[in-house]
């Protein structure tokens, strides 16, 4: 099969997985474009931000940064803190992105919440090239966000249809993928820990500052669990020697 046909096939197979993101990103991207417009930043600026940074919720935070005194250092640090969760996405995808050549850089560039959630949950269909499958999901999601931003900044003000609530598609996506993930038995514990550690951190630290404490808590519990599993495993099984 030639390369073009292979890529086409991968896009056809990947597209249905991205439909919830199509909905969510068009709506949220448009909301972003409109909001930027309201603050005096036209199409060029909002699209440039979406093309270069592609970081959903941080782009909304950045609107505040664009409308106060110029402080690039604060903006840089805030961007790292708000996006810190991506560190865990990278760790999760190390194996899956291994040996994918130059496309890998684009996959890493586009590793937002939604793309990560799909690529870490969905298994690549057997007859599809893994490299192009991931590429298709990443590129489609990226384009949805840019197109949403573009539409919002140009025609957002004229749209009369009440889209309030459509972005729940992304929340529902995470819930569904959570259920799919914890179907395999050894993933129930980490899933439950992720949810409750985040909920506890939210109660303790509030909506703006909870993600990093939640990540620390999740990492700590998962590491302790790993150590205690190993201990009970080796005490039950004297012959085992770090078997995989």
């Amino acid at each position, binding site marked *: 099969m030639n390369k073009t046909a292979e890529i086409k096939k991968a896009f056809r197979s990947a597209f249905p997985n991205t*439909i*919830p993101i199509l*909905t969510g990103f068009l709506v949220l991207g448009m909301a972003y474009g409109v909001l930027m417009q309201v603050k*005096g930043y036209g199409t060029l*600026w909002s699209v*440039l931000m979406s093309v*270069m*940074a592609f*970081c959903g919720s941080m782009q909304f935070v950045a609107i505040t*940064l*664009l409308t*106060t005194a*110029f402080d*690039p*250092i604060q*903006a840089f640090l*805030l*961007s*790292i803190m708000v996006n810190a*969760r*991506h*560190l865990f*996405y*990278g*760790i*999760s*995808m*190390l194996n899956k992105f*291994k040996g994918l050549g130059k496309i*890998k850089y684009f996959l*890493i*560039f586009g590793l937002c919440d939604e793309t*990560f*959630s799909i690529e*870490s*949950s969905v298994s690549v269909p057997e007859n599809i090239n893994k490299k192009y499958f991931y590429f298709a999901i990443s590129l489609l999601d990226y384009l949805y966000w840019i197109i949403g931003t573009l539409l919002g900044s140009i025609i957002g003000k004229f749209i009369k249809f009440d889209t*309030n609530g*459509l972005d*729940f598609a992304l*929340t529902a996506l*995470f*819930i*569904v993928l*959570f*259920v799919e*993930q*914890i179907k395999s038995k050894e*993933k129930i514990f*980490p*899933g*439950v*820990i*992720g949810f409750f550690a985040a909920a506890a951190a939210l109660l303790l630290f509030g909506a703006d500052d*909870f993600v990093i404490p*939640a990540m620390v808590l*999740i990492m700590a519990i*998962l*590491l302790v669990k*790993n150590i205690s599993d190993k201990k009970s495993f080796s005490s039950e099984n004297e012959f085992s020697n*770090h078997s995989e």
Partner: protein
Amino acid sequence: MYLTNVQTFIIILVIALGTMITRFTPFLLFPDGKKYPRIIDYLGKVLPPAMMGLLIVYCFRNISFVSVNHGLPEILAALITLVLHLWKKNVLISICGATAAYMILIRFLPI
């Protein structure tokens, strides 16, 4: 616009840079071909479900349980997502159904 063009461009640049540092760091620490500690394999398996749990909470971070509707539309819509998914086992049906239900709930739920 509050900032000059150059200032705006710099802000966009540093935000992109901050984001990309968080996305690229794991891959720079453990490049292809380099052997990495076994614990990373373990984390690669358990972090996705954990982060999916975190992302659900992240989506709900701004609902207030003391607001007029006590976050009821969000909770109901989340339950509808769960029930639909366990029942129909089809990702698109669950998401479309739940989103439609949420849009109806926030408009017509009597407080």
